[in-house]
């Protein structure tokens, strides 16, 4: 700040400088605002829009060990599926996208039954009664872990973000996560993924 008393010229200069700062701010804000078109907040929730990723060999995270109790009450650990292609589907009977992908999972689990592909559901924030009614309704034959508190998602989330329900992971024969679908799994996307990983 200049020491001398403000003269007219320096006042004008100050006004010009403030106007310049304001103009830069406004222009920058407008440019970024129009360019960004209102980017959504940092939330990575993909509602119904499949966001399918296939990880290249060498970029696949190892599947963490997990265990739990199935809806039928049997003890089950991830070791059961060692060396197999595994489709791990996080779902809940309350979840609309899960209900829309139910027929896809029922059909693909039957189709790949004899191709060395296992399916395992993880039923989250649900009750066994509701979940069994769901499986009955959609004709789902493969088992599901009863995980009302999302503890399996937490364990696996250390390797792959299980950011939404549903999330579908495809595990390769070396127990690494080969593909992920965040949101609804459609028949074509999951079929495509499985044909590559199980080939």
């Amino acid at each position, binding site marked *: *700040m*200049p*020491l*001398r*008393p403000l003269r007219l010229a320096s006042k004008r200069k*100050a006004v010009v*400088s*403030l106007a*310049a*700062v304001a103009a*830069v*701010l*406004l222009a*920058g*804000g*407008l*440019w*970024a*605002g*129009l360019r960004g*078109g*209102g980017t*959504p*907040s*940092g*939330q*990575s*929730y993909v*509602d*119904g829009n499949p966001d399918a990723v296939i990880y290249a060999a060498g970029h696949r995270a190892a599947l963490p060990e997990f265990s739990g109790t199935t809806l039928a009450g049997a003890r089950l650990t991830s070791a059961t599926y060692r060396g197999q292609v595994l489709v791990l589907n996080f779902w809940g*009977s*309350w*979840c*609309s*996208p899960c*209900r*829309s*992908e139910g027929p896809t999972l029922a059909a693909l689990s039957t189709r790949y039954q004899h191709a060395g592909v296992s399916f395992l559901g993880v039923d*989250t924030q649900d*009750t066994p*009664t*509701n979940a069994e*009614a*769901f499986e*009955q*309704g959609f004709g789902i034959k493969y088992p599901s872990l009863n995980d009302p*508190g*999302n*503890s399996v*998602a*937490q*364990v696996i*989330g*250390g390797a792959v*973000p*299980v*950011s*939404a329900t549903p*999330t579908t992971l495809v595990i390769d024969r070396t127990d690494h996560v080969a593909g992920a679908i965040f949101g*609804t799994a459609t028949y074509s996307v999951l079929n495509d993924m499985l044909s590559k990983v199980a080939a």
Partner: protein
Amino acid sequence: MTNVHEEATAQAEGTVQEQAAVQQEAAVQEEAATTTFAEDGPASPAAAGSARPAPARADWGWPRWAWRQLTSMRTALVLLFLLALGAIPGSLLPQEGQDPAGVQNYFASHPGLAPWLNHLGLFNTFAAPWFAAIYLLLFASLIGCVVPRTFRLAGAARTPPPRAPRNLGRLPHSASYSVALPPGEAVAIAAGMFGGKRFRLRRPAAGDTAHWLSAEKGYLREAGNLLFHLALLGVLASIAAGGLFGYKANKLLVEGSSFSDTVSALDVFHPGRLVTGSDLAPFSMTLQSFSASYYTTGESSGQPSSFDAKGVYSASPGGATKPFDLRINDPLNVDSTKVYLIGHGYAPQFTVTDASGTVVYDEATPFVPANTSNFLSDGVVKVPDAAPTQLGFIGVFTPTAFAANGVLQSAFPAADDPAVSLLAYEGNLGLNSGVPQSVYQLDTSAMSLVTQQPFLLRPGQSYTLPDGRGKITFAGYRQWVSLAVTYDPGQIPALVCGILALAGLLLSFLVRRRRVFVRATPAGAGSVVTVGGLARTDASGGFEDEFAELVAQLRAAHPAPEHADEAVLADAARPEPGMSPDTTLDKTETGA
């Protein structure tokens, strides 16, 4: 006294006080008709640059001018104001982070305006680019202000005080008296006294025959000023850290159920810009019981007196479990992540049997309190797997039921006499479409009423739907709690920086930079001691008293001459005669 008037104008214009004081000094310098202040800080090249922009502008042109404008205090204040102004839309308009439904409603009710507001980022104000621009410019302005000042302070700390002006009588404060000591000894005693008071001293160079002393004190003032600016930067940095690395989430948890701190388990999740799902503290917790107590008598009857949520938690998957006891404002702290109890409600437990006799629904279903004074709560039950058609129920839960003119009401928030009233629908819930829907609302657009009148159930009672569609049982109720999970790494640093900023501000207000000069000239067998004082920054006042005190102490340390008339003679030599020796110890410039 033009200079003094100029200084007053500069001060009135809100110019930095410090520099006004520098000018005050310059004025004194002119009057003192000496150039001994020449080596003082403000005359150094760096300070000259900031004090006199005109020549530098010619050398560096616009970039330097723009930088100087940006780092000026005025711009910093304007930016601070803009920051506050920019935060206003964040509180007036619904924000995507906190209230996505509100944003949708706003779009629906203002279809023309909303897209434009959205382009300007006003629905996500604190993440908007223009908000970041203000924030970053303020940051740059503060850094540009603090860094040169740090260097200047470091320089000033190494620079000795200026030489004593020749005519100390012209300083704002001065005093003069005679002593029975030779000038050299008189100044040496003064040096000992000021040194003991932790003044920084300067004595004549070797070979200088004059006897004088310069003493300066109060560097803490500028240090406090710097501390304030640095702490302000720290506050901004802490808030930025919180925004980048912190997160906020909400979770509704029913008694008897568990939850793991992972993205898919959280009902609402607002991560910071640099937070990914794997950054969440991997704890899990189980709510075993919740109890709320209410006042039952007096005016505050029905008001809550305490809440208590008990359960166990584990800091990592498979880790040891520890008990927790959550109360209002008494959060659970797991690895710096805090879990607050922010709300509660009732979750009536329903079982639904469909037409085939299969139990297709069994769940404690959270209802949302519509009225927190009596906890009358609304909710819906969706039975998507009922055969042959999906069933849905819209319900009201009353913890203490009574009928008011035929309408179900609740008399008290505690569950003394719980009841539910339900309306049954059948048809398509819209749940199989894949489009997410609220668990608290029933989309009846593709459904039809099964019962024309609502039916009332008490715990354990069932209602059989007409024409063999099945039945619904109200088994009882559980309570739920609403939890806020927050992680803000900037919270404690922001608090510490806030306290430091306040401390710095106090220092810079309470400490003043002041100089005291002593000259001794031989007079007869003894000498005449002249003391001059100058406060560079005396916003809070009080230097006058300090100066008088210092002079009194110095005088007491000097043995007085045998003849009192010598002292009178010395005082008479001062520029303002007519005052008695006792009151002329201190002279204050009143012309300003």
